[in-house]
């Protein structure tokens, strides 16, 4: 059973048909890559999936065994879609610039922070949980954050505002934030664009480890070599349409794909 299914999606901006009758699906436990030349509509598909923009026509279905069997999420707002299990990394940095790196990551664990009374005064509604339980979960969240940061050699940045991070560091923190955000599907928009070769290898290793753990990943990547190395399935877009789909090997030898990339 697929995790995400997209049916005949269309979206135009003025005269530009950014997404044109696009259909594909994402299978569980695999890394699926969405590739295609610049402007072929990949980011727009992500914006449609996460509910930031609405399609002109077409449908998007989400499957999350913990919540529902299949759910039409086509016209839902971004926060609801996120809470249904879609976690996203943007192509451009979207960190909270004035918050520390640790605070950026702590925000991702759950939405308890939205509850004013329990968050500010430690009062649980109807006494389900005591304030001390709240504090202890906070402590364990901080521990998880510290472990992640140490793993990616960012421990020294924990207390620094996110604006002080280098480009590569901020990409990493953004990926970590999307991992901490409870999810069933990870969608990553060009996570390695513009990073150093070492960091690129680090992220590649991370993606493969995540797959081992059973994560489902949909990845936009411009770099063909990286993509064909790391992914299980590849979907190729051009001018808003899916022009090819298959294993990395099939895609490598598909003349249509070569043509689209040479244009």
């Amino acid at each position, binding site marked *: 059973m697929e995790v995400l299914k997209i049916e005949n999606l269309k979206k135009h901006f003025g005269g530009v048909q950014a997404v044109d009758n696009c259909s594909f699906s994402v299978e569980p436990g695999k890394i699926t890559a969405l590739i295609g030349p610049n402007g072929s509509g990949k980011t727009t598909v992500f914006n449609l999936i996460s509910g930031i923009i609405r399609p002109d026509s077409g449908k998007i279905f989400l499957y999350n065994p913990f919540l529902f069997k299949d759910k039409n999420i086509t016209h839902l*707002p*971004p926060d609801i879609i996120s809470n249904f299990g879609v976690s996203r990394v943007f192509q451009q940095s979207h960190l909270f610039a004035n*918050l520390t790196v640790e605070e950026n990551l702590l925000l991702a664990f759950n939405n308890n922070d*939205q509850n*004013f009374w329990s968050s500010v005064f430690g009062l649980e509604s109807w006494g389900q949980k005591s304030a001390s339980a709240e504090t202890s979960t906070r402590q364990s969240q901080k521990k998880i954050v510290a472990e992640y940061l140490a793993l990616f050699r960012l421990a020294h940045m924990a207390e620094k505002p996110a604006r002080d991070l280098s480009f590569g560091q901020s990409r990493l923190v953004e990926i970590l934030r999307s991992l901490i955000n409870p999810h069933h599907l990870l969608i990553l928009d060009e996570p390695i664009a513009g990073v150093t070769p070492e960091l690129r290898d680090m992220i590649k290793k991370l993606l493969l480890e995540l797959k081992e753990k059973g994560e489902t990943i949909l990845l936009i990547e411009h770099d063909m070599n990286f993509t064909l190395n790391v992914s299980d399935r590849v979907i190729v877009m051009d001018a808003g349409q899916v022009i090819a789909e298959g294993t990395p090997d099939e895609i490598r030898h598909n003349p249509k794909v070569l043509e689209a990339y040479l244009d």
Partner: protein
Amino acid sequence: MLSAYFIHLLILIGIYIILALALQLALGYSGILNLGHIAFYGLGAYTSALLALSGWPFLLCFLAGGAVAMGSAFLLSLITSKIKGDYLALVTMGFCFVIYSLMLNLDELTRGPLGLPGIPRPTIFGFSFSDNFSYLILVTIIAGLVYLIIKRITDSPFGKLLEAVRDNELAAKILGKDTFKVKTFSLALSAFFAGLAGSLYAHYITFIDPSSFSLMQIIPIASIVIVGGLASLPGTVLATVVLTLIPEALRFVGFPSSILGPMRQIIYALVLLLILIYRPKGFFGKVELE
């Protein structure tokens, strides 16, 4: 003589500190470009004054002032739910103007431009705050409490969420946050504290009229927030003291009071300019908006 005058200034500073801290919550912490803050201040003042004149005890009037301001903030938030940034600033200014017009034109209730005289000084549990020194103590205690509550809010995970929404609302949504709810709550809390400040003002001066709550009154308060530094509570307190005392100092250099009013505006503009040039984040601020 001087000391009575000084007590008067300290009381005004205390009230302004509450008003400015309230604006910090919405503007500095949540990034809500609310230029209608004075409307909440005015609603608090009028609500509290009218109830007191009809015989309610001070504490209830005080809290009702905050509550009415808060309720109007919920309404304003619903109306402006689809509006962002510069446009929100315009609409909130419009809101302030509407409230001001109501104060002027609901003659039956507010006596229009004549204002409301004879607002009683507070009595709490039999203790009357009729002299200025005791009123200063009352204002100081309330300002201190408001400071501690707002600090508690902004240090909490909820406060961090406010700052997240300010820094990048889309990213907050993508993490699953209901940013509309969060901003509404922040605006409502901000309005509540502004309403309390309005009540303290009304019961101190014992006379209010619409002129104290015109749109322009936002300038000194917004200046305080910017000079103190966005999202800085100690900065807000310091800036309130400095910006209130500097114009007063002119009085002692011998400026006639007729030009003190315009001078005050000029000084605010100057201080604001100097800060923006030399310390764009304010006295203690760390926050930079994109």
